[in-house]
């Protein structure tokens, strides 16, 4: 099913919101406002936007350590995520999770995950819950190429397959596993080729082309929702920035990075597509970008105005409240 021009514009808007959030958070990290490890999603926006465009609020998403984009695309609060990165009490996880653990159950975001490969089984389990209850919610498991080398990939995808669970395994193949090219760590560089091992459909798609992502996503989500079981999808993409803050990137050529940033930027590709078809005017484009920028600036103000958690919060949320009496 082809997305309507309005739907495409929504994806375009989502991608800008993600891009500008990441760039602003990066700036805020330089000021010392964003603390801790922080992994930018720039360059990979079409994957989150293309999939989440087909999800309902009550569908489940499980992320990775690079999940700000998933959360925004799933309908999350930019204010509360910025506050979380600032370590503030108004953060979506009250400042207890941070960048790698962004979760918001009100929009079905079951959590980013600081353990590479840690999300496969929980995403599969959420799909099992849906199936056991006879619901039609689906579960989308985002993961990186590096995670396919974890044993959890094999265990969970196999389990999802044998039970025909409504789960879509979405590999964001950004071609680097932290600092190492994917090809040095596996001889099967197309993740799609792993699908036959589990007897499920596999797809590989240009992860910079949000239209292509959206088509594949729509089919897989529909198949999962109607009881057709899991799909393994590889989105070939690229990380515009290093693995995390402070990554010197001596392991990859500057020309390679420039090529992807200049020629393969998913936002610019969609912008060109829409403009060529007169589906996006210069004015609309400018408004989308300035609205997104205003939203991000307002998130910074929101985060900045929020207090840090108080000492009494340390022992809360380990178990359900009220706390058991401590002996």
């Amino acid at each position, binding site marked *: 099913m082809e997305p309507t021009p309005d739907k495409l514009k929504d994806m375009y808007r989502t991608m800008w919101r993600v891009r500008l959030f990441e760039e602003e958070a990066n700036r805020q990290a330089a000021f010392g406002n964003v603390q801790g490890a922080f992994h930018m999603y720039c360059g990979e926006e079409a994957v989150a936007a293309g999939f989440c465009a087909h999800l309902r609020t009550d569908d489940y998403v499980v992320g990775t350590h690079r999940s700000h984009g998933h959360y925004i695309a799933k309908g999350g609060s930019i204010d509360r995520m910025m506050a979380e990165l600032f370590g503030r009490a108004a*953060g979506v*996880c009250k400042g207890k999770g941070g960048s790698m653990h962004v979760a918001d159950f009100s929009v079905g975001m079951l959590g980013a995950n600081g353990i590479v490969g840690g999300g496969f089984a929980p995403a*599969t389990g959420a799909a099992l819950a849906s199936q056991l209850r006879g619901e039609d919610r689906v579960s989308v498991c985002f993961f990186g190429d590096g995670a396919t080398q974890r044993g*959890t990939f*094999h265990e969970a995808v196999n389990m999802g397959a044998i039970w025909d669970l409504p789960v879509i395994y979405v590999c964001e193949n950004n071609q680097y596993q932290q600092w190492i090219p994917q090809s040095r760590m596996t001889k099967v560089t197309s993740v799609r080729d792993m699908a036959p091992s589990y007897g499920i459909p596999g797809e590989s798609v240009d992860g910079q082309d949000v239209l292509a992502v959206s088509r594949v996503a729509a089919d897989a989500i529909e198949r999962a929702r109607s009881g057709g079981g899991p799909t393994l999808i590889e989105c070939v993409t690229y990380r515009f920035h290093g693995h995390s803050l402070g990554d010197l990137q001596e392991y990859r050529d500057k020309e390679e990075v420039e090529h992807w940033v200049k020629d393969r930027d998913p936002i610019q590709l969609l912008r060109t597509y829409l403009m060529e078809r007169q589906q996006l005017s210069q004015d609309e484009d400018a408004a989308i970008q300035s609205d997104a920028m205003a939203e991000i600036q307002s998130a910074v103000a929101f985060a900045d105005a929020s207090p840090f958690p108080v000492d009494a919060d340390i022992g809360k949320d380990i178990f*359900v409240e009220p706390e*058991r009496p401590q*002996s």
Partner: protein
Amino acid sequence: MRIMTFRDALNEAIHEEMARDDRIFLIGEDVATHGGNLAVTKGIAEAFPNRIRETPIAEAAIVGVAVGAALAGMRPVAEIMYIDFVTCAMDEVVNQAAKMRYMTGGQASVPMVLRLPCGLSRYTAAQHSQALESWFMHVPGLHVVVPSTPQDAKGLFRTAVREPDPVLFLEYKRLYSLEGEVSDIVEPIPLGLAEVKRAGEDVTVVAVGPMVSKALEAGILLEDEGIDIEVVDPRCLSPLDVDTLAASARRTGRAVVCAEDALMAGCTAEIACAISERCFSDLSVPVRRLAALDVPMPFSAPLADKVVPSVEQIVEAVKEVVNGH
């Protein structure tokens, strides 16, 4: 009041709780066929055919899938065939299940029971006989429950499955055939509530899991020596009911702590330390520990039988503390 085995009491608890709450489902290896590897889930497949999932041999996925289902509102009861295999799912237990509520600022709830058959039973050597409770006591966010009687197995399971947070439910395999009195109606037993299994005046014996029946046996033998021990069963190692243990030790002035996990950094270390910190000035002798030898479980029966504390060792340890050393 009925006489039942630990296995049947637990099985009955699973049946009753599944009938009460349709969010509960079972997941694990061979849990339906033959009523499960150790026959604890007998009859569940017939009674609740759509709420039992037999899995591949994939412990990380069993626990991880249970975590995901719990996050999505279900109440999974996952069985790891032997506790030794939970090592293949440590990320899912320690980094995922235990941390979810905290990392999400209280949004996530992981109401999962992880059933962990453990301990020495049929001479199955070092990879099928371990007692690993202390590992999990060390992780904030996990409850660790160790029932010692059929009644407690039923009452504690009823609580475990109603908890909003993950519970590691350690089932000592040797106890499955243990018979005991079970009330007609067993109320859920709150977690973190120790029970005095035998009242006494002279020495507090804190006994965990299968050590409880051994301590009670030792208590009868010690009566002949004129020594009256009090046997206290923590029942739950996290949260640990230090108040009850300390009150008993303060009254008797002497404490022996016995468990089946290894001595080094085992659960006896935490319990002994907690008692010492609370009751140092009330104790007439240092707290004494009895635990498994710090060796992998050997296969050969004469060797294996020497690894975990015996009734005789409990008797000896009690006599020694009574004599002031």
